[in-house]
Structures are given as C-alpha cells and as structure tokens.
C-alpha cells in the first residue's frame, strides 16, 4: 500500500513539474512565436515591398541603416567564415551578410526553409531537378534582369556548357557556384610497386580496362581492385553512362526535342556493356555489394580506400582531393596520389563530365538588388572564398590561364599526399565539359527511378544489358509521355 502511495506521489509531482515546465515553455514559445509571426508576416510584406522596393532601398540608403542579408547553404560554418568576413568588409555600412546553415542539402530541408517565410536572400541547392521545380513554381527570381543590368550575358560569364543547362525557358534562375569536374585519381605508389606506367591524358577506355585488370589481385576480403567508381548507386553519380555522355553531350537521356528518351542509341549500349564487363566479367572494379556495404559512395571513404590501397584508381570529382586531409585520420607515409583526365573511346580530345551546385534568389526576397550583390560575390567575384575552400572549381569560365592556375592552387595546395605538380599540369590541359545537370522536368523522376531499378539488377547479375536498355527506353518514354 505504501509503495502505491509513493508512486502516486511521484506521479503527481512529475505532473506538476510538467505543468510548470509547459507553462514556462509556453511563455518562451510566445516570445519565439511572435518573432515567428513576424517572419510569416514577411510574405505579405514582401509582396507589398515589391511595389515599394525602390523607395525601400532609398530609405535604406538615406537612413544609413545596414541591411541584413541571409545566405543559406549547408557548408560547415567554419568554411563560410572567410566569405562572410570579406563580404562584410567590402560592403561595410551597406550590407551585412549572415550565414544560415541548413541541416543538409535534401529537397525537403530546403523546401521547408523556403516556405517558412524566413527572410532568405540567397539559397543554394545541389539538385538541378529541384532548381527546375522551384523555378517553375515561381519560388525563385529570374536572374537575366541582373545580368542585363550588369551588361553581361550568361554565356560569356558562365560559359556555353553552363548556359545550355541553366537556361530555363529563356531565363536563368540560378548561378552555379561550383563546377565539379570528373577525373581519375590514382595511387602512384601502387603503380610503382606493380611496375606499371602512370596513365596519361589521351588514354582510351581500353587502356583503362587493361590497367584495371593488371592492378587487380588477391582474393576475398583482401582483394585489391583496379578501380572504384559509382556505377549504379540510386542517388549517386551513375558512371555506367559515362561513355554515352562523352559521346552524346548534355541532356544525354533525351532526344533533340525532349519528347522521348534515347536509351536505344548504340552509345548507351557501348557504355553499359563496357562497365558491365569491368564489374561482372573482369571483376576488376569494386562490385556493387562491397561498394554499398563499405560506404564507398561517401567521398572521404572513397579517398581513404584509394590511399589505403584497396584499389588503384578512383573516378571522382576534383574536390575528392579535399579528403586528403589529416582531419580524417593520418594519411599513410609515402602516400602519393596522382590525377589524370578521363579516358575516351578513341584517345582523341578529352571530353569529361561535370556537375554543379547552384545558388538562387527567392522571389520573396525583400531587396533583390542587394541579394544579387551577395549572389554575385559568392559565385563570381569571390568564388575563391566560397567554392575554393571546398576544393571546387567555380561555376564561371576562367578568363585567363593565370586565373585558372591561381584557382587550381587554391584547390590543390596543402593537400598532404597529393602530387600537386601533376594536378596543376593536368588541370591546365584542354578538355570539353559535358554537364550532367538535368534541368528538364518531363519524365525526370520516372527516368531516374527506372535507371536505379534496372541498373541495380544489371550489376547484381540479374538482368542483361540489352534487356535493361530496352526497359529504360520503354519506362523513360512512358514517364515523359505522362508528364507532357
């Protein structure tokens, strides 16, 4: 009986505690709630301020008040310090930039932030599809007006490859703040030990295959593979179509007028058959099952696998060198990582793939001209402070070799175990870029789903190359038709 009373007492006490706490919580929420209300009110304000924008800006200027600008990205905060500090110094007295870190780059995270009514001046995203959807739904401002005001054209600043993918119905809704160029990283030490020559620009896919076979040895858990690449991961880079992309160019999946897919093109068969043979016949690249289980799709793990000698070559973007960094753990003594351009079918001019992350101005932004300053600063004027620390190339086209080399130094310098000279030399070579960014909305979700479904079957050995491509064609065309 006593025990029961005791428990009842505990229960009642905790209830009261809860009640008090809730009371306090309520108060706290009130204060936070009111700021929230202000924020949600800003939508209407924003609508109103669109009309009085000019006067608003003038007021700002005349009153001498410093205008707050909110820059949203998912970069770790310490990497943002240089950019924010430099901007606030350059625009001291006019603008003050604040960095707001997003939890991640996921579609929903960014959509909820955009829909929350918070004052956002610059928003970033990794997905080209999300960019397209947001542009279509009126979430972002068209940027052509600002390029016009500057007296620029998108093409001359960003380059024609970028212009092609970022052009949405004649306007542009984002600026790529980085350009991730695919390269082949290789472990020079392993090549030396095997008595193999280093791969050179101008090599062919046949060379790649021979090298990968030659570098493969061992059995079971100790097996060393010739290469590791992400050929069929659902959300990954999908290198199974790499050769088709090199040959067919941007928007590879679509025909010329975007009314159907072109998975029946011989280039797709060539590409898939090639990687199928590497994985399933020669078994000289890391198989899908190990790739997923050992988390090789995470870039630091991918780089660690390379310098720890699990494979001799790794196909990855340039920023892969970022993970040559002691903060991920000690890098083995004598690590020597080299880099070479992507092979091609004929060994002629280099063609390689790239993809971007982009930055945009939300339509609810209070002062678009101010936001443009921040956007331009981070993506174009001071990309060295935004893309640079992340070891990414800027989205724009370099105007001179000096600009290019200076930027490459930012990317490659101070990476322990990297052959910086080789990296500098290789990046100075000419190459044609094919963008992987897919800003076409029709059928894209269905096509990606079909690719994931069929490619995991191919690389699990349960489906033939021909059957997979036939499925892709049929399912992709159906998806496009359904979205038309």
């Amino acid at each position, binding site marked *: 009986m006593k025990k029961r009373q005791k428990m009842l007492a505990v229960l009642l006490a905790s209830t009261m505690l809860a009640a008090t706490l809730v009371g306090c919580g309520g108060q706290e929420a009130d204060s936070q709630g009111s700021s929230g209300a202000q924020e949600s009110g800003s939508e209407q304000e924003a609508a109103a301020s669109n009309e009085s924008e000019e006067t608003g800006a003038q007021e700002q200027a005349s009153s001498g008040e410093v205008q707050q600008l909110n820059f949203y990205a998912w970069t770790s905060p310490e990497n943002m310090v240089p950019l924010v500090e430099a901007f606030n110094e350059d625009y001291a007295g006019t603008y003050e930039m604040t960095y707001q870190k997003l939890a991640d780059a996921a579609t929903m995270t*960014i*959509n909820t932030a955009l829909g929350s009514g918070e004052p956002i001046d610059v928003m970033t995203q990794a997905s080209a599809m999300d960019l397209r*959807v947001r542009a279509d739904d009126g979430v972002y401002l068209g940027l052509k007006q600002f390029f016009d005001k500057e007296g620029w054209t998108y093409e001359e600043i960003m380059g024609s490859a970028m212009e092609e993918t970022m052009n949405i119905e004649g306007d542009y809704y984002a600026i790529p703040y980085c350009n991730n160029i695919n390269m082949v990283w290789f472990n020079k030490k392993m090549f030396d030990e095997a008595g193999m020559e280093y791969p050179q620009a101008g090599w062919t896919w046949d060379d790649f295959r021979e090298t990968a076979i030659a570098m493969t040895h061992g059995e079971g858990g100790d097996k060393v593979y010739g290469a590791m690449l992400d050929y069929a991961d659902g959300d990954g880079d999908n290198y199974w179509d790499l050769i088709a992309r090199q040959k067919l160019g941007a928007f590879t999946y679509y025909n010329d007028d975007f009314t159907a897919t072109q998975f029946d093109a011989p280039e797709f068969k060539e590409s898939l058959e090639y990687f199928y043979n590497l994985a399933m016949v020669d078994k000289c690249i890391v198989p899908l099952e190990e790739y*997923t*289980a050992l*988390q090789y799709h995470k870039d630091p793990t991918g780089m660690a696998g390379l310098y720890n000698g699990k494979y001799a070559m790794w196909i990855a973007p340039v920023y892969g060198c970022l993970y040559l960094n002691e903060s991920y753990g000690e890098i083995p003594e004598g690590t020597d990582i080299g880099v070479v351009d992507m092979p091609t079918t004929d060994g002629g001019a280099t063609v390689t793939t790239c993809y971007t992350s982009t930055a945009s101005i939300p339509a609810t932004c209070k002062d678009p001209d101010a936001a443009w300053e921040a956007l331009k600063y981070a993506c174009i004027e001071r990309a060295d402070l935004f893309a640079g620390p992340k070891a990414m190339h800027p989205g724009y086209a370099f105007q001179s070799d000096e600009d290019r080399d200076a930027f490459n130094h930012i990317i490659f310098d101070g990476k322990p175990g990297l052959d910086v000279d080789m990296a500098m030399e290789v990046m100075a070579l000419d190459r044609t870029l094919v963008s992987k960014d897919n800003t076409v909305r029709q059928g894209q979700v269905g096509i990606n789903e079909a690719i994931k*479904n069929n490619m*995991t*079957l191919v690389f699990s050995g349960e489906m033939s190359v021909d059957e997979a491509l036939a499925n892709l064609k049929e399912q992709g065309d159906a998806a496009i038709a359904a979205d038309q």
Partner: protein
Amino acid sequence: MGWAFIGLNLAGYLLFKLLPLVLAGVLSFTKWNIAASLDKMQFVGFDNFARIFRDSVFWESFWNTILYAVVMVPIAIGLSLILAVILDTHVFGKGLLRLAFYLPNISSMVAVSIVWMILFIPSYGPINSILMSLGIDNPPKWLNATSTSLISIIIIGVWQRLGYNIIIILAGLQGVSKSLYEAAEIDGANAVQKFFYITIPSLSNTMFFLTMISFISSFQMFTPVQVMTKGGPGTSSSVLVYYIYKAAFQNNDIGGASAMAWVLFLLVFVFSAARMIVSRKKES
C-alpha cells in the same frame, strides 16, 4: 464522465493528429510545392490517385509491404514471447540481458545498417563465410539479390523488433497472477503447459496490442530499406512508406505522396475495423 478523462488527450489529438491527417487528405487532391506559398496550390481532382494506381512500382511496394508484415510480425512475436518468458524468470542478470536485447532499437541506425550490410556481403562476409564452411556451396546473396533482399530485411526487422516486443510482453507478464502458476504447479503442469494454458490466455489484451502495433509499424517500416537497399535490387525490397517518403521528400511530389499515405491509412482502417468487429462478436 468518460469525456472528462478523454478530453485533454482528445483535444490534442484532434489538433495535432486528426487535423493534419485531414489536411494531408486535402493535399492528396492537389499539386503543390512546399517551397511555394499556399495560394500556388492547384487542385487536380483525382489525378494523384489515378497516377499512383497506374504506377507498377507503387503496387510492387504495396505487396512487398504486406508480405513483410505478414511474415515478420508472427515470427517476431513468437520469438519474443519465448525470450520474454525466459528473461522474466529463468535467467541470471536479467537487467543486462534485457538491455542487450533492447540495444538494436536504440543503437544508431547508421551503425545498425552498416554492420548488417557488412555481415551480409555475399562473397566473403561473415555470414556466408560461416555458411560456406558448413558446406553450403552457393549461399544466398542476401541484400544483393531480388529473391532474398526482402527476406534479409525481414531478418533484420525481426532482430530489431525483438527487444521492443520483449518489453511489452514483460510489462504484460507482470499482470499475470502468480497464484495461477502456483496452482498449476500443484496440479503437476510442466513449463510448456503453463506457457500455453496460463501465460498466453492471460496476455490476451497485451497480445492484441502487440499484434496491432506490430502490424502497423511494419506497414510503416522504411529506414532499413532507405539505408541498405534503397528498394533494390530492382524494386524487390521497395516498401510503401519508403516509396511515399521518396515521393514527398526527394521528388517534390507531395500530392502523390499524400494520396499513397491515404491509401495505406484506409487499408489499415478497414483492417482494424474488421478486427474490432470480430472481437466484439466474440465477446457477445
């Protein structure tokens, strides 16, 4: 009087559960981007429903979900019933063992999935190494084959569910009167007889709860699929909530995702209504 007791919970429930649920119902008839303001919402009638009913991956996910639930729930409940009875009385170090069984529920999901993916590696992972040393030449490819991917997910599901079920059953077992067991022992009943004639009948209310909750949560299973197989190979391990999650959280398709969620909800509604009518008829 009943309303006085229920009032507080009901009010909160209406506001935070039923209202959002109805709103999700409204969303299922629309096309809307959460990033845009509410006035950009377009009503599209039954388009979303028509679209998902035509979608073969939706149906495959639907059947996978039912298969998962129907296989996983009885196995997990059966095993945890036995383990819980053992853990309740017949062992030393109860507290620690209970914690050990509950650990899969609280360990980081990333850790859980990585460990299982490595255990399941077909070519030289620990599980297949053991099987091969036992003389099985062609062990299954587990997560990496269409024929076994869902089975592997079921194994992981059972493994993870055990600790949870055990706690519920343990809580239920405390309500079983000791005097019943004592009486049975005097009558010479053995452990198995006691289990079937006393333990199980006394747990009927707990078991009803456990069965319902297990089915409902297995209809909602998605994290292992999301982290380990992404529904593959092919669509062999795609389940409904994973498909819904992908539509809403990755593919900007809130309307379609809400429609699918409502289909799932209606399915369970019919299921639980039937279950209640049956149990009512039994009572009367």
